[in-house]
């Protein structure tokens, strides 16, 4: 990257990129701002940007109506639990696909992805009935399993692409030294794939956090995550922009913050093997 760049060009780039960045981010910024307004200010024309009476009233109302911490806790457990379980199951599978490929490897991989295309609502009744049988309704365990299954194809695929980039010679060498298959995976492969695994975990935590069909339909009280929390705010009576904004901010803030802090890891690994 030794291209000589004039300051002028850099300035133009910066201005343009910032403008686009702010434009894309604006709906979120606007939601956060609105959450601190009164309902009247929220719909004011012309819109008020910063100079309003900042208030925490909306957050107080939302918290009074629903126990935010419980929803949050469920979201955390379900998102992280399903992802970790999925990664644990996917690592061996991805390993064998990457290092002992057969003719069918690619077919299996693509078939796994195609299971994601099944329209969820079509199987709501069957799954609901199975869940009743197994006593899994409204349990975190049940949701962890379902979300793990939903995201497993993506996890396998991402890990597969990372593993493929690890040169086979290193494994050969480890094998020469007499490493067992287990220690080969645990001590040689996994450390090398850490950035890829981290990125896989992050992406799937996000996907699981935002999944809104099964998390809403298979829960009631004990396992209800933030997607259920937001479902009680979607059409309140009368003026509700500020309250809706507060609830929305509360629902997305944790994952937004996590995403920002770990965006380097996420971005570094987010290639799906696109870079070759």
């Amino acid at each position, binding site marked *: 990257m030794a291209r000589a760049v004039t300051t002028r060009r850099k300035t133009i780039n910066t201005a343009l990129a910032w403008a686009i960045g702010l434009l894309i981010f604006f709906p979120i910024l606007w939601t956060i701002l609105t959450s601190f307004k009164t309902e009247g200010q929220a719909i004011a024309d012309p819109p008020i940007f910063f100079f309003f009476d900042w208030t925490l009233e909306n957050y107080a109302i939302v918290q009074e109506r629903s126990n935010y911490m419980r929803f949050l806790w469920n979201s955390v457990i379900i998102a992280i639990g399903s992802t970790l379980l999925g990664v644990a199951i996917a690592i061996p599978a991805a390993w064998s696909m990457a290092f002992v490929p057969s003719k069918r490897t690619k077919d299996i991989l693509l078939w796994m992805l195609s299971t994601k295309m099944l329209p969820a609502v079509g199987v*709501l009744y069957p799954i609901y009935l199975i869940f009743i049988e197994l006593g899994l309704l409204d349990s975190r365990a049940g949701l962890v399993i379902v979300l793990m299954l939903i995201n*497993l194809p993506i996890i396998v695929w991402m890990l597969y692409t990372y593993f493929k980039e690890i040169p086979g010679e290193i494994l050969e060498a480890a094998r020469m030294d007499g490493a067992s*298959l287990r220690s080969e995976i645990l001590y040689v492969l996994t450390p090398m794939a850490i950035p890829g695994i981290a990125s896989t975990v992050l992406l799937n935590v996000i996907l699981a956090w935002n999944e809104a069909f099964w998390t809403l339909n298979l829960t009631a009280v004990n396992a209800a995550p933030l997607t259920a929390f937001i479902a009680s705010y979607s059409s309140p009576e009368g003026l509700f922009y500020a309250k809706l904004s507060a609830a929305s901010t509360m629902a997305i803030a944790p994952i937004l913050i996590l995403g920002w802090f770990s965006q380097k890891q996420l971005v570094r690994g987010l290639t799906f093997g696109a870079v070759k």
Partner: protein
Amino acid sequence: MATQHSRSAARAMMAPAVVLLLGWMLIPLGMTLYFSFKKYLPLRGGDLGWVGFENYERFVSSSAFWPSVQATLIIVGGVLAITVTLGILFALLLDQPMWGQGVVRILVIAPFFVMPTVSALVWKNMFMDPNNGLFAHLWRFFGADPVVWLTEAPLFSIVLIVSWQWLPFATLILLTAIQSLDGEQLEAAEMDGAPTIKRFWYIILPHLSRAITIVILIQTIFLLSIFAEIFVTTGGAFGTKTLTYLIYQRVLESQNVGLGSAGGVYAIILANIVAIFLMRIVGKNLDA
């Protein structure tokens, strides 16, 4: 290199994931097929016996069927076109030297973290509302009549909302791909006096083809099943009823599980047509 031993070990390690997914696919699929041949009306006592292909006929003969296939394809196609095109442009821009690149990246990536329900609610109420939405304020400021987004441009509105959510994903993957591009090759081309457009067309775009196919593949999988964005904004009115939404209406609103299941089978067939189509392209690209 692979010995007989490692082959069987490999198979054993793949087994949990394959078995689980096979179960996850076959059990619901089997039950969907089973219900699709039944008259199954939960509100009328549940299972009312076998009906052959009646549900399949009824589902296709409904006036809502073909428009729903069309709406599905328009939404998926529209979002793909927007996210890939803008994604390439943003990725090219973000690849340029600038101040505060990290912060810009944080701003651009943010929509990807927002739940679909929340993003649909925010767009519908705070931006597209013809009375109090921000767009309406903006239009009035310039002396124009506010656009009633969800009725005057319903499909476009939904494509816009969904594109906003998926643009970060496309941009980031494409950005990583661009960053891996060999700088020397580009410089050489620049030295030769190749104009920007030519450089883009003959060097950058071919390099990105693999990343583009992957963006298309992954997004299609998710876009075929979008639901919250439609449920919250139009509720399936104004020609925005996708196949997924139509199945939802049959299963949950009409409480006709047999009919909905038949729709589910059609959706699987459509998804597989799209999948085979995609895999042809991706398969080729994955080997390249």
